[in-house]
């Protein structure tokens, strides 16, 4: 019995690790909230960075068991999603981009990844993700100061492999290295399908 457990456990943990690596799923839920319901620290960061602007939409999000607050806004013709933890500490700033707006190096590396991993693919949404301290992120948005900022690329796409044909969300480093891969789980739309 003991021998069986010793043999089975490593196999089981390897199996679970493989599942975890290949089948991370993104099931996102978000609820619109009023600004007054958001932690004060997050409100202060937004207004300290973008000024007293109107039209900010606040959401409470739950994604893969993790809760956060998100502000969506448009400033200088750029669309931003800014994520905070439940205490109001900034986690990242995401900015929407089109494929043609990306630098040629990253485009080459991303194309290499897509072509070698998928038979067919179609990019749906590209966001540049900026990670750093609250001060660094504020300086980046206000003065384009890149010190202390890590840039990643979050890409939502439809990708077909030999075995799967799904929607994916991948996070790539600034040089196009894959950091994270999640399968996007859409809620059923039987009322549109049937």
């Amino acid at each position, binding site marked *: 019995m003991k021998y069986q457990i010793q043999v089975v456990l490593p196999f089981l943990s390897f199996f679970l690790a493989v599942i975890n690596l290949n089948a991370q799923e993104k099931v996102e839920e978000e609820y619109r909230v009023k600004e007054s319901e958001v932690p004060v620290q997050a409100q202060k960061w937004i207004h300290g960075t973008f000024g007293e602007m109107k039209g900010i939409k606040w959401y409470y999000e739950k994604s893969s068991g993790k809760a956060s607050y998100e502000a969506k806004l448009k400033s200088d013709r750029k669309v931003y999603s800014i994520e905070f933890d439940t205490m109001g500490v900034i986690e990242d700033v995401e900015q929407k981009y089109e494929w043609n707006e990306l630098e040629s190096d990253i485009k080459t590396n991303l194309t290499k990844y897509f072509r070698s991993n998928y038979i067919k693919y179609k990019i749906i949404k590209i966001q540049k993700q900026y990670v750093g301290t609250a001060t660094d992120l504020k300086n980046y948005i206000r003065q384009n100061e890149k010190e202390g900022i890590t840039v990643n690329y979050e890409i939502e796409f439809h990708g077909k492999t030999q075995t799967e*044909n799904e929607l994916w969300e991948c996070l790539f480093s600034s040089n196009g290295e894959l950091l994270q891969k999640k399968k996007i789980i859409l809620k059923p739309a039987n009322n549109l399908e*049937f």
Partner: protein
Amino acid sequence: MRLRFLFILFFLSGIIMAQDSESYLGVVPEINLSYKLKTIKFNLKAESFQLFHTNADNPAWDYQYEQTDIQLFVSKKINPFIFLALGYQYGIEANDKNTHRSIQQFSYVFKPGNLKWGHRVRTDQTFYQSKAAKFRFRYRLSLKIPLQGQSIDYNEFYMVTSDEFLYAYQNKDQEYENRLALYIGYLFENSSKLQLGIDYRTDFSSEPLVHNYWIRLGYLVNLQ
């Protein structure tokens, strides 16, 4: 604002169109069960048409059983957006002359932003006991709109609106019908949905025009 405008447009179009024509009002309770097995989905639907009012000949509030349809679909997911389905419908008619219908369906559901769109193309063939078979071609465009936040999450309201055009051919006769629908729905935590709304159907082939107003109450359940 967007919602109020759609409601006004919907009801105005019904009132304007209802001039000098026949109209019927009824209720349709509906239950819809779905079961998913990897890329295959089974969908069982039962809906029953109960008529309550007519302005034809002798305007009256009067209950009349119309028909009950039981449909079974097997749908194959081709990719995250495209679904192909084959279906069968058994129709329990008021006159006891029940019908059989075979259905072929192509659906394209996509979500470019906060709204979910659905294109559905259907062909169906209905077989009657004492008359010629009816062949139909249908196209429906649907739009699902979250009413709270930017996506439809659990314990939230949403709206579905759709318009469908139908062409039917039966024994050298041709018919044209339009179906405009508007529903308010609620998504429960177990992924089931409750929908209430109106399905406004115009039959362009009859003289005078016939307008059917069906108040629909649907319960949609995802077993997996």
